[in-house]
């Protein structure tokens, strides 16, 4: 019963079919099977947020999703989000404010911040902090990240 199972899904707009072990989580699937190493495996038990990706349009913890359960799903990673240009301004704001230092949390942070831009365009600083509270950053102290998201929201209004 631990045999591999075939799944077909869409990743960053491309249809992919792979045979996966049931124990494979989405992040290992993306990184090891598809070579998409932008999503990071941090704590691997749902606490740190470095593995944040979109599944069917909503952000999820990639380390708490079975790859095998995603047959037919649509996954967007930081690579796809970045290439689409959807968050070009947000990424520029991250650079301008030095909101990335070591960069380990940054892909997950940008995925979560993009969720604010899409669903909560009126978010204030408190709402931004709340929305990003599940994404850990051990370098920046968060201020620069919140600044970058706030500036992007304001510029889009």
């Amino acid at each position, binding site marked *: 019963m631990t045999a591999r199972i075939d799944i077909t899904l869409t990743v960053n707009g491309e249809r992919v079919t792979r045979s996966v072990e049931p124990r494979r989580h989405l992040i290992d699937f993306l990184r090891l099977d598809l070579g998409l190493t932008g999503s990071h495996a941090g704590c*691997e038990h*749902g606490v740190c947020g470095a593995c944040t990706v979109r599944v069917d349009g909503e952000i*999820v913890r990639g380390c708490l999703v079975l790859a095998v359960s995603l047959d037919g799903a649509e996954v967007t990673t930081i690579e796809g989000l970045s290439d689409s240009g959807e968050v070009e301004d947000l990424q520029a704001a991250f650079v301008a404010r030095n909101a990335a230092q070591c960069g380990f949390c940054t892909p997950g942070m940008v995925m979560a911040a993009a969720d604010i831009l899409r669903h909560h365009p009126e978010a204030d600083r408190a709402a931004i902090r709340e929305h990003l*509270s599940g994404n850990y950053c051990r370098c920046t102290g968060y201020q620069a990240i919140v600044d970058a998201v706030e500036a992007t929201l304001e510029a889009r209004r």
Partner: protein
Amino acid sequence: MINKQVVARGLLGLARGMSSMKWPAFGYARARSLQDVWRLQSEHGDGARLIAGGQTLLATLAFRLSEPTVLIDITQVPELRGVSVEAGTLRIGALTRHAELGRDELIARHAPLLREAVPYIAHPAIRNRGTIGGSLAYADPAAELPACVVALGATLVLASAAGERRVRAEDFFTGLLETALRGGELITAVEVPIATAATRSTIAEVARRSGDYAMAGLAVHLSLGSNGQVAAPRLVYFGVGNGPVLAKAAGAALAGRRLGAESIAAVQAALAGDLDPPSDLHGPPEMKRHLARVLTGRALSRFLPATEVAA
């Protein structure tokens, strides 16, 4: 169900540095109906575990707190989906995700307590996957939803191959991480009596960081008459015991009285007879009792007319 001994053993393992973040090997099968679930359960026996949102189960697998032989994915079982109102009862399918609880209009209108609870549950990415059925089945003593359903006087609908039965939420939580669920049984829905014009409900909690499990928390549900008199108060505490704690002495201290500074003080005093919190990483029992009293004052004050709040 998480077996308590397995959890204890797992935690011991962690303490000894034997943890692993990779999941153990297991099989996977997707059920498309309840009939499918029963069939897969009988095929795979005791080693089978159900998986819905996976936000608790998969984290416990990372710590090897349990090692199922096969996961039965129930997310495509239509009988477990949907939110509807029928004959004065709000029916919430077990697969309803936390994020859906937060934006569903029927829930906002008929059980606003659940909507209010959502921002306290973990973080947005987890709320997009985690389900109400999963949260109730895992019965974490510091989780919000178990306390909310007890406060709401909800009924849980349980099903197995043998049929369906209903259990009152307050009878469902039987101990630390333990519930009335029998082997082979699952939660199909939560039935909530719908709110009336007199219904007041709210939730309050203290956590170290946003989204963390509560150090202490409280879900309240009561009726407030036009004269300010309280009827049928249900104060349910979480993070302070083995499961949600329905505070009976505190409720008795409030029932039939006019809500105000005096009756709130009486409720706070009565809590001493209701709560016997264990000490944990956050602090000793007295700290939890203190937090419970403070939260009680905050929560009940929200139902006072604005003119009385300062008093």
